[in-house]
């Protein structure tokens, strides 16, 4: 059995799955239920200055019949009394001494920071997370992302916290910034033990077409909110990679953003996370999803021969390169496996209209054919094909040649002017513009009219 336990900057947890600071960690009741279900840790819903919330609070991006591909909220930090929260943290820690309980905090003055850090430590929290991420409601009051976007302010606050902190301190970063490594380095300079990312992304998830107002709607009006859920994973992964690869950050990272299954978690870990946090998925499906997450992670580790999480933290990082270091001699082309093809011709229309006109249709069959000479190996057809492994991208070069843009630049071998002979698409075939005419027009006709030819009648 692989060992799922972690020691994250000194915070011990039976597995790397933590609930992120959010509604699922709003109370001792929820956290105990989650620990019973199998979660390894919980970052308590942010404690701090008193707030008042509005109704409604959440909006969703649905994709066809799939609900909550993306999710946003205009909720603030915990609106429960601080004393109640601290008492419940204490109770949870008594019953679950081996699980990780992290207090998420957000206050303003140095004195307030000192007070709340001390109180959290006394309540028995295993660590502290500083919320410098909330992109709505709190930033207007000079907190949340207003701090996360100002590396100097962030550093100062971390320094205040470190003056009294006896337990590990994690700084949670906002993605609403052009270079995530700036606040990450500021956190390190301030003395933080770890970082976590990402918080939510400023967003409007949709507009009501009848009320002319953004979701979620509060009395006919709305506001920008914070975006999260499966849709944000790619953004989170990239920011995670940026921090993990940066030579001056060098802090343990708790990965957050779009994690719903063990696969998402493994992706975060491969790009450098050594704990992961989950919010939207738990809000969507409840705490029970942890059973699939731990079992999937365990199975993956067994299959790969990994004994601990640390065997693969950051394992994909060496393979993430700047574009200029990619091998331009590597060449794949699309290959349709006829026996699997169901003839939907999505690949044809995708390549025809959205790529390089490298797929053709032949009379008497619905199976399209790749015109290899035109195929640039972009992947589009294989991505749209609804049948698993029906279109594969097969390697065409022999693997011996290796040449990057950087090497070409250094060798003075790059196209530099308009119409340069060395430009990539220079000798790529494209159809004559007028060849397009008549290919789509008839489809705008209804029903059999599409097939009408000239009608002849007897006079």
């Amino acid at each position, binding site marked *: 059995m692989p060992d799922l336990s972690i020691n994250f900057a000194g915070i011990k947890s039976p597995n790397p799955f933590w609930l992120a600071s959010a509604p699922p960690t709003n109370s001792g009741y929820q956290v105990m239920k989650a620990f019973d279900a199998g979660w390894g840790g919980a970052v308590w819903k942010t404690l701090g200055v008193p707030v008042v919330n509005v109704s409604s609070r959440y909006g969703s991006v649905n994709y066809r019949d799939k609900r909550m591909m993306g999710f946003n909220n205009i909720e603030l930090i915990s609106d429960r009394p601080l004393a109640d929260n601290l008492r419940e943290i204490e109770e949870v820690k008594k019953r679950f001494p081996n699980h990780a309980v992290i207090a998420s905090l957000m206050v303003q003055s140095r004195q307030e920071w000192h007070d709340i850090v001390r109180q959290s430590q006394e309540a028995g929290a295993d660590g502290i997370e500083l919320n410098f991420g909330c992109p709505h409601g709190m930033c207007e009051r000079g907190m949340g992302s207003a701090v996360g976007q100002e590396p100097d302010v962030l550093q100062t606050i971390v320094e205040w916290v470190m003056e009294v902190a006896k337990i590990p301190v994690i700084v949670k970063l906002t993605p609403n910034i052009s270079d995530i490594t700036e606040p990450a380095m500021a956190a390190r300079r301030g003395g933080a033990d770890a970082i976590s990312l990402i918080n939510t992304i400023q967003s409007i998830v949709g507009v009501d077409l009848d009320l002319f107002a953004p979701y979620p709607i509060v009395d006919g009006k709305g506001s920008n909110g914070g975006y999260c859920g499966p849709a944000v994973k790619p953004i989170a992964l990239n920011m995670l990679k940026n921090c993990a690869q940066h030579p001056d950050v060098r802090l343990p990272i708790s990965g957050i953003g779009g994690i719903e299954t063990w696969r998402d978690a493994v992706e975060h870990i491969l790009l450098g996370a050594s704990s992961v946090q989950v919010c939207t998925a738990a809000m969507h499906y409840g705490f029970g999803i942890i059973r699939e997450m731990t079992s999937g992670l365990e199975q993956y580790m067994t299959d790969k021969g990994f004994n601990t999480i640390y065997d693969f933290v950051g394992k994909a990082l060496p393979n993430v390169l700047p574009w200029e270091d990619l091998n331009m001699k590597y060449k794949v082309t699309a290959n349709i496996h006829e026996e699997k093809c169901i003839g939907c011709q999505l690949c044809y229309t995708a390549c025809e209209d959205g790529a390089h006109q490298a797929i053709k249709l032949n009379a008497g069959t619905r199976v399209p054919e790749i015109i290899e000479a035109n195929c640039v190996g972009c992947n589009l057809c294989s991505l749209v094909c609804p049948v698993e492994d029906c279109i594969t991208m097969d390697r065409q070069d022999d693997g011996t040649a290796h040449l990057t843009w950087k090497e070409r630049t250094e060798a003075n071998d790059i196209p530099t002017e308009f119409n340069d002979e060395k430009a990539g698409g220079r000798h790529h075939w494209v159809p004559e513009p007028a060849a397009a005419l008549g290919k789509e027009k008839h489809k705008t006709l209804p029903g059999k009219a599409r097939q009408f030819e000239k*009608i002849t*009648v007897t006079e």
Partner: protein
Amino acid sequence: MAEYPTPTSEQEFHANFAQLKPRMNSSEALFESSRCLFCFDAPCIQACPSGIDIPQFIRQINSGNDTGAARTIYEANYFGNACGKVCPTEVLCEGACVYNLQDVKPIEIGRLQSFATRKAIEEEKPLFTPGIPNGRKVAIIGAGPAGISCACELRALGYEVDVFEAKAQPSGLTVYGVAPYKITNEEVIAEMNYLQQQFGYSVTYNAPISSRADLQKLEEKYDAIFLGIGLGRTNALRLPGEERENCVGAVEFIEQLRMNHHATAVGRKVIVLGGGNTAMDAASESSRMGADSVILAYRRGKEDMGAYEFEYDLAKGVGVKGLFHVAPIEIVGNGKVEGVKFIRTALHEGQVQPVPGSEFIEPCDMVIKATGQAKQTQFLSLIPGLEVDGKGRIVADERTGQTTNPRYFTSGDARNGGAEVVNAAAEAKAAARGIHEYLKTRS
């Protein structure tokens, strides 16, 4: 034992004849429309005789434009809701859906189609208006799928249209012939009203055109005449005893059933003669009406039947038993039907031949003859210059519907010899265009 209790009320009738393709709720429509792949040059469109742009209307449903979906459907086929419910989709659009090749359930195109169209009907969404009047008049004989579709299209083109219908209601066999578990009368009529309200053609009911004089009046008053007369009554078997009480034609039996529902009399033991879709329907219907036993008797083997496989499965599913390789030779009884005398058959040099000495009597108290519909040759002979082929079908151009009398056009069962509602609807829409081509060049 009867599979179904004999229905004694409208409610019980509807329970026995529950809709095979029940109405989708909006969640079902969202889930099902989400599955559609939006194929390029989709095979489902190609398999639809009316060429509805199926991926287009499914995408419209999926994006919350149900009215646009209804428009896409109706622009191609005026019997949009009826077709969604009564088309043999298994062998048309749904049979062609690419999912079949992946052993995944095909998209429920028919139900999605009805989802969009019924909503438009109920909400009385206006989709069409008549064209600018062009001063020309067309008479339509028969208010079936062919006649009504032709009327709609001609109105859109600006013609004045008068429809003459022998019966009391529009839609032809859609309301008088199709099995009640495929579509309800109310639903059929609601769609007919929806169309008539928008297009504004006139229909005169209980107005059979039956004499040369009737036709002459139409010829004088109208620029062209469209024959949407379908087929006739059930063919006679020419067997001794056929006149006995409770020996009925399938088309006549089904019409009774559609009009009178549970008040239709059905025997306890029914024998249905025939192997086509109408035979399957009549057998299923007898069973659902509470008959103790229903036997489907056919001259040849099961695999030789003209009926679609799924129609036979449907009949078997409600307890109908097959009796194959038998030919009826007499309807026996004393005033009332008491049985059918059959002789066994065998294939001899490709021909079905009776096996001498193999006669037997299968007792029953009702016989339903599903042995095809007669052609209206007598009536058609009243039209000068109009040719019919050897099978009694009106000779006409497949696309324009023009007959050998240039002022007469036709489509639907009368021309194709008996197909589906969708064929009649699609062909008649095309025939209206044919009439337009013919008339617009004449002053």
